[in-house]
């Protein structure tokens, strides 16, 4: 069994003057949940389209489990499934009929499999209704179901949590964790660090068509700057005066504090000692998010 599920090298895609992908490399280890992060417009979707064989790159290669991503007839390898941007279906067919169609297009009778994934995604109750009446979240779940019908070893999902309610997000995370535990590989694209943080060990961050970070979340976390906190006190002006080394700055009707845990503890203790009551204190931007912004904004994106 190959240890690399997906190996993309030197991908270049230009649209007229715009370079959507500028020599992008992406390696996803088998059995992992790999995050693909980037602000909107960074090239995530273009990359996923190339990985799914929909867009022809101007240069570069993609291998899946050590084989070229598409076969001699331009077909996606049978052990890859997923979607780029919102999954789409025939609105005039029922959810079940859509899945049966796709199972047939996989040259697979899909019998039993369709019902199993409908059940797994909690769609059995509405499977007999036309997709036209589905909510965004239901279509999203049907998209994951459609990918699972193919029994992929590599699952490529673009913002799968879009439109899902908190319970739906929780169920999806649980599902993806189970897939990974069973040896499956997931490439999960998102523009939210929190989403990726909850599931992934490894991330690739895209900014303006280039890879700005590739590696473990742990390493990213370690190199991250201090987190940002939002602080409101009885007397913000006095609190600001107590802050050393530009630890805190005024921000609207409160203060923004950038500090690691020990420094923050010391500052709060000083405030309390000075008789300045703390009304509110919470982390507003996580260190990883600060890192993400720092990495991707440098490229001028967002």
């Amino acid at each position, binding site marked *: 069994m190959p240890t690399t599920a997906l190996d993309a090298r030197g991908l270049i895609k230009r*649209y007229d003057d715009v370079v959507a992908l500028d020599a992008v490399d992406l390696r996803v280890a088998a059995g992992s949940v790999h995050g693909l992060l980037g602000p909107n417009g960074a090239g995530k979707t*273009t990359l996923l*389209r190339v990985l*799914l*064989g*929909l*867009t*022809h790159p101007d240069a570069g290669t993609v291998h899946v489990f050590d084989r070229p991503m598409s*076969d*001699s*007839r*331009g*077909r*996606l390898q*049978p052990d890859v*499934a*997923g*979607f*780029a*941007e919102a*999954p*789409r*279906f*025939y*609105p*005039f*067919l029922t959810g079940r*009929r859509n899945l049966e*169609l*796709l199972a*047939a*297009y*996989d*040259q*697979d009778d899909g019998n039993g499999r369709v019902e199993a994934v409908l059940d797994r995604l909690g769609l059995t109750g509405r499977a007999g209704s036309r997709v036209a009446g589905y909510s965004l979240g239901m279509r999203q779940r049907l998209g994951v179901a*459609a990918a699972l019908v*193919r029994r992929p070893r590599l699952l490529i999902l673009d913002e799968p949590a879009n439109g899902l309610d908190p319970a739906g997000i929780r169920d999806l995370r649980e599902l993806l964790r189970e897939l990974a535990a069973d040896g499956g590989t997931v490439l999960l694209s998102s523009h939210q660090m929190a989403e990726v943080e909850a599931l992934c060990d490894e991330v690739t961050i895209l900014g303006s068509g280039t890879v700005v970070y590739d590696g473990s979340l742990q390493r990213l976390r370690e190199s991250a700057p201090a987190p940002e906190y939002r602080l409101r006190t009885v007397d913000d002006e006095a609190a600001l005066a107590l802050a050393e080394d530009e630890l805190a700055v005024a921000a609207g009707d409160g203060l923004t504090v950038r500090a690691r845990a020990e420094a923050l503890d010391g500052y709060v203790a000083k405030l309390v000692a000075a008789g300045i009551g703390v009304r509110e204190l919470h982390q507003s931007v996580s260190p990883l998010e600060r890192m993400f912004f720092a990495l991707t904004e440098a490229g001028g994106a967002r």
Partner: protein
Amino acid sequence: MTTDPRPHGVATAYRWEMEKLAALLRVRLTAVACFLAPFGLVAALRLQDAVPADTLFGRWTHFSGFATPMVVLVFTGQWALPLLTCLVAGDIFASEDRYDTWKTILTRSCTRLGVFWGKAFAGMTFAVLVVVLLALGSLAAGVLVIGARPLVSLSGTLIPPGPAAGLVLESWATAVPPTLGFTAMGLLFSVATRNGPAGILGPSAVGLVMQLLSFVNGVDVLRHLLLTTPYGSWHGLMSAHPYYAPLLWGGLVSAVYLAGCLAAGYLLLRRRSFDEG
């Protein structure tokens, strides 16, 4: 290079295209209308004394029910059949753009060739269905409402009811090749424009231009190369001394349009990069 044992999935794509078509109200209504509209026409003809004398067989519409399907063939052959067949063919690729479902089906295991032929065959099936329904509907309407009296041929001879029914159906069968040609043109427009209305109306516009060209004097050769001309190739069947040269030539011309449009359509789809949507 090893040959790929997995099929292209033409049969699968065809079967599901047919299922998708059957689920569309527009398609069902067109099919029903093709069968029932001739009854409306006959009823309207029956209610008045005037006959559509400027159409072949028009002056015999009150006399023989077999004239009805021939009048409907003349009426629909030139402009309605290209439009009717393109209601499906002109939209069958563009609908994937409209629903944004190319990415859904092209990330499965059917090849683009399989998807293309599945859609092409589905479009052609609908084309044949439209011709069959119009033929049977107008024949039934004529025979039931006007009566099964002998038909006056284009040479002035009387054709008894049995042979007349056979000749009517044969005449309608000659409309199949050019209709398939227009179907392929609709498929090509659908792939090329990615726009349903353009795919549906484009071939009809081409058909109209072809009809105008056919009225230009002194260019008989051009007339023989137009896809609208084979719609008249049944004339030879309705003569006292049948002739088949226009039929054979019309079949050849239709086949050239069919093959050319299909090849161009497939090449466009094969090369297409799905960058958006």
